[in-house]
């Protein structure tokens, strides 16, 4: 009887692990992680000893490799006077947005939100990526995020829950992006 219980437990744990691995290895998961990785890398540059900003361009280039030339992106407002999201049309405008992040924000730490089935399982478990095929060709993914970043100018740190919706064309390039960030709060030490 004991052997049966132990065998069942092992089988159960193995199947959970295999399932988790399959979710983590899915192409949609990789697309989401790649987008987050390149976004977070935008602050990964340094100043030279003579005060020159170096290495920003390759990081922005790396981010922009993901986008189609005719991309349409809806992103959070750039400045205090802007109310509501900003619609960017074309790769050059999205590039300006990415460049602005690279130059004005530091310690970028956007993460895919995790979840388990239980009612309180919000901070551990799987990083869920929802996906669908688009009727006009290509595919789309959506995932929840938590955005964390600091202002380069004064080091104030912010956090915001959010969601990302990305549509890919048949060529695998991003045609539409919607980045939603809500309830932006400043992180203040207790």
């Amino acid at each position, binding site marked *: 009887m004991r052997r049966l219980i132990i065998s069942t437990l092992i089988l159960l744990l193995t199947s959970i692990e295999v399932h988790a691995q399959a979710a983590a290895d899915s192409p949609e998961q990789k697309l989401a992680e790649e987008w987050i990785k390149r976004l977070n890398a935008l*602050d990964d*540059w*340094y*100043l*030279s*000893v*003579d*005060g020159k*900003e170096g290495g920003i361009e390759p990081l922005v280039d790396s981010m922009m490799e993901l986008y189609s030339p005719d991309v349409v992106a809806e992103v959070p407002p750039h400045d205090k006077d802007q109310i509501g999201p900003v619609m960017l049309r074309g790769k050059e405008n999205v590039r300006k947005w990415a460049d602005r992040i690279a*130059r*004005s924000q*530091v310690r970028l730490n956007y993460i895919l939100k995790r979840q388990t089935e239980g009612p309180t399982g919000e901070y551990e478990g799987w990083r869920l990526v929802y996906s669908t095929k688009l009727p006009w060709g290509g595919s789309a993914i959506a995932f929840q995020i938590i955005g964390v970043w600091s202002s*380069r*100018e*004064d*080091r104030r740190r912010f956090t915001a829950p959010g969601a990302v919706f990305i549509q890919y064309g048949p060529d695998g390039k991003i045609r539409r992006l919607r980045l939603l960030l809500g309830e932006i709060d400043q992180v203040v030490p207790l």
Partner: protein
Amino acid sequence: MKRQFALIIIVIAAVCAGTFAFAQQHRPYNEIMKDVGATFASLKKNLDSNSAAAAAEDAAKLQGLFTETEAFWAPLNTGDAVNYAKRARDGAAAVAAAAKSNDMTKALASYAVTQKNCGNCHLAHREDTGKGFLIRP
């Protein structure tokens, strides 16, 4: 007469431009920091051995070095680093003043304040690669 006047104006303008350009330049940051490190170590040694005059001299040198540090950060849109440099310079000034008046306890307290600003700035803007340091914006 007019030609001479024009020549004088041109010479004065050239001297002003040269002076301004010189003021805009600063030493490489690693050189400034190496000088800060050596002077800071010397200051601590002099404070510990109650050598007030030498300590005051080191603190005065540090004031100049932190002014250089502030000038490095000023155009780089990093207000926190500028403020750390300013506070470190003020701390060094307080060390110098206390050492001149032979108040070594006060000098040591101001030294600790200065050191704290150095540490905070390094935490935010210095990245140790194992082979050296990188400057984070």
